[in-house]
């Protein structure tokens, strides 16, 4: 576990400016991945860096409630699961694995009143899965690499 840093200025700058900005920038990279360079892998790494920064300055004990170590393994499995599911749903419609053409996304186009092809929707779903998986795996690695033996901590 990393300790909480003492400096109040550091806490203020990290909490108020840096972490929100980095998370917002990562979300922008993720959403904009279809239009410009970006996508799930990069955005996951950027957002994970924001959370690692929070853990470095605020300490694991104060920042981990936002993203608890214990549930990260579930999140990373969920990310891979979303990807595999997006690949398997077309198989029930008689198409190949990962052939997004037959994903049932017409209802979304009706709600959003905006035409997107099923393949574009499939790409977005897959990127969501990659984003969640990369984000939680990077955080999980940081958390377990900085973990101390249980008799060392006071909780």
């Amino acid at each position, binding site marked *: 576990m990393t300790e909480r840093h003492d400096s109040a200025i550091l806490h203020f700058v990290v909490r108020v400016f840096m972490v929100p900005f980095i998370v917002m920038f990562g979300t922008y990279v993720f959403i904009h991945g279809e239009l410009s360079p970006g996508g799930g892998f990069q955005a996951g790494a950027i957002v994970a860096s924001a959370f690692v920064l929070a853990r470095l300055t605020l300490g694991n004990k104060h920042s981990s409630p936002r993203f608890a170590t214990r549930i990260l393994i579930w999140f990373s499995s969920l*990310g891979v699961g979303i990807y595999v599911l997006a690949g398997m749903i077309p198989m029930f419609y008689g198409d190949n694995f990962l052939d997004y053409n037959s994903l049932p996304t017409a209802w979304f186009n009706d709600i959003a009143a905006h035409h997107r092809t099923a393949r574009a929707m499939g790409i977005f779903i897959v990127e969501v899965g990659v984003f969640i998986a990369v984000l939680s795996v*990077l955080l999980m690695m940081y958390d377990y690499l900085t973990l101390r*033996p249980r008799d060392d901590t006071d909780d």
Partner: protein
Amino acid sequence: MKWLTLAFLISFAGLFIYASADLPDRADPHAPATEHLAPEFIALTDEEVEIPNIVSAILADFRGYDTLGETIVIFTAGLAVLLALQRGYKRDDGTS
């Protein structure tokens, strides 16, 4: 033994250098990869996927299987770190 390995490697390096003379130049517009695959990807992205970023279309759609493998590699790496570094984990017999 060392010299035998060295001679073996030199002969292989010579073979590769000889074979590389036949490969197309870098950024050659008439290379087979750019003449057959790239125009197809560009056309299909425009017709079927309809997103402006061809790289995303190739990454997640045309090469979706590859990206699935990459994601699973990252997931496995995280899993390996978790299994190797997880501490304070009690077994049934009381040893940690």
